[in-house]
């Protein structure tokens, strides 16, 4: 945030790598916690809570993809497929065996991680564009399998209805209840990622991304770390898929098509590759964008389009704007919103001086 570092001297690497870079950061976190745990759920209208809920789910997925693409440098176009693996695993366990969410959720994540490792196998031999194509094939094959195997997809429409999660007899069946449920997992994912990237594993990921041969020479087992990156990333994706399933009360393969993989790529590119804050900003941005477009189109678009065309126009515009933003950020600001935020922050940090 905007506080200044004067008077803080770090004398050990441990202090430099700490979760809270400054003592005052604890207060920032405490204030944020107060806002999100107490003030927001008490004051915000249900509709806006539902948007926040979608953002929380997207944050989990975006963090997972960023670990793989942003930190480890392995491109994946199959993120949505891993979500669907998690979603259908959890849905089947919940419906057929009646298991509660605290079993189905990690189970969905672990299943997705297993499939993720299998799809990530080609990354051991090939990289860059070949890996992109291999993960694309993974996405299409998983999509096809779920759609064509009734044992997984639950037969008709390839969708499974799931009860809302419940804990100690309390069912999370309103937006307000789901808010706490999803906030918990979003925060868990954020803290886990922050800890992961400052650990030995996280540094190894960055080394593999920056120069894989050099990483191997300094003793990093790049095969292991690449598969680990795929496993962790897919675990996040699986959990994200389970959260979607519980949030909508239904697992449906249409929520996890190729387009969704592109949405998540858009999130991390717009937000900032290789940054936790970037994943969060990207998730917020990409979730809000279609809502803003819809509001704008409902006001302005009715002048040009009939109501029947509107739904098509809105979804088309959404995709078009995403595509345009991906290109724009890649060319103009490859570090994304995260960089813009840092620029703003460093301006205020030394204010009133310019540097």
């Amino acid at each position: 945030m905007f506080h200044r570092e004067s008077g803080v001297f770090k004398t050990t690497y441990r202090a430099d790598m700490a979760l809270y870079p400054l003592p005052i950061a604890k207060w920032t976190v405490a204030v944020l916690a107060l806002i999100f745990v107490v003030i927001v759920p008490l004051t915000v209208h249900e509709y806006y809570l539902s948007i926040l809920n979608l953002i929380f789910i997207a944050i989990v997925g975006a963090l997972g993809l960023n670990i793989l693409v942003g930190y480890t440098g392995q491109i994946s176009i199959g993120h949505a497929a891993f979500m669907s693996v998690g979603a259908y695993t959890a849905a089947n366990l919940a419906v057929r065996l009646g298991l509660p969410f605290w079993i189905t959720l990690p189970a969905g994540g672990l299943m997705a991680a297993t499939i993720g490792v299998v799809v990530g196998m080609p990354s051991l031999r090939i990289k860059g564009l070949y890996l992109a194509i291999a993960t694309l094939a993974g996405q299409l094959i998983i999509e096809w399998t779920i759609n064509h195997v009734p044992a997984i997809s639950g037969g008709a429409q390839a969708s499974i209805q799931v009860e809302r999660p419940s804990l100690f007899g309390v069912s999370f069946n309103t937006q307000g209840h789901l808010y706490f449920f999803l906030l918990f997992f979003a925060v868990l994912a954020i803290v886990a990622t922050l800890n992961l990237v400052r650990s030995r594993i996280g540094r190894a990921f960055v080394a593999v991304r920056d120069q894989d041969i050099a990483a191997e020479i300094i003793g990093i087992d790049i095969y292991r770390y690449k598969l680990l990156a795929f496993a962790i990333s897919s675990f996040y994706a699986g959990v994200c898929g389970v959260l979607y399933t519980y949030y909508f009360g239904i697992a449906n393969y249409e929520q996890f098509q190729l387009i969704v993989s592109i949405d998540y790529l858009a999130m991390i590119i717009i937000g900032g590759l290789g940054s936790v804050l970037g994943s969060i900003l990207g998730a917020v941005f990409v979730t809000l964008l279609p809502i803003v477009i819809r509001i704008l189109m409902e006001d302005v678009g009715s002048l040009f389009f009939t109501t029947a065309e509107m739904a098509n126009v809105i979804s088309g515009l959404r995709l078009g704007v995403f595509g345009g933003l991906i290109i724009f950020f890649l060319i103009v600001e490859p570090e994304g919103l995260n960089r813009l935020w840092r620029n703003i922050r460093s301006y205020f940090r030394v204010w009133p001086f310019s540097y």
Partner: protein
Amino acid sequence: MSEDLEFAFSLLLNGASIGLMYSLIALGFVLVYKATDAINFAQGEFVMLAGLIVAMMLSFEGMPLVVAIVVTLAVMIGFGFGLERVVLRPLLGRPVVAVIMATIGLAAMLRGLGPVVFGSETRAVSLPIGDEPIVLGPASLPPIQVAGAIVAITLFVAFSWFFKKSRMGVAMRAVADNQQVAQAMGINVERYFALAWAMAGVVSALGGVVWGSMLGVDVHLALVGLKVFPVVILGGLDSIGGALVGGLIIGIVESLAAGYLDPYVGGGTKDFAPYVLMILVLMIRPYGIFGKRKIERV
């Protein structure tokens, strides 16, 4: 010929003609990769765009087909040049992943804005070739597939001549071989990059006409582009002959899988078999049948 053999023959012939139409689209992909080392994830969207333009031109009263195709060619060439200038050139020298993601962004943009600009209904592109199936022995082919195969083979002959004999083609091969040396020999590398994208535009324009008239033109036409990847991986990313052979093999595999496996698994193997084959190729021989072996290993 026995019943079984006749069935197999007609599957083969059908697969081969569809396969040649895949090669047509894959050709655009290979041309770009060969010259500029850029992966174009938007190849299917190029085809969709060309199809949309042709369909729109034909929807005007009394528009001759030739004019519509010429206009589409011109627009797609302009699009190729513009795209290289605006999107690809600023990304020169950046990691390969950046270019991949930029073309994915381009694909999303075209797929999103195409229906908004041109309308989302499915349109027909009617070519003056009739609907009567052409009978070849025991098998019969829809005329559009024959036309597509002929267009594909013509383009392959034309591009083979271009790369072997013409001055520009030789310069382009030099650029593909080694950009720095080519530049040192006085070849304007950036101009040839733009030319490669324009050539992809030409191929996509013809692909849009052929595929558009076979499937009808709407946003789903872009899905054809997903079949490009098995074709080029199998044939080799930088080989024009590879696109031809890869297309034939994928087309035949797809047709045989649909003919023999569909009754057992309840349909849809057509969209499944090519990718399984592709994964196998990636595992065993990632540079494909004719590709250069210089693939970067880890």
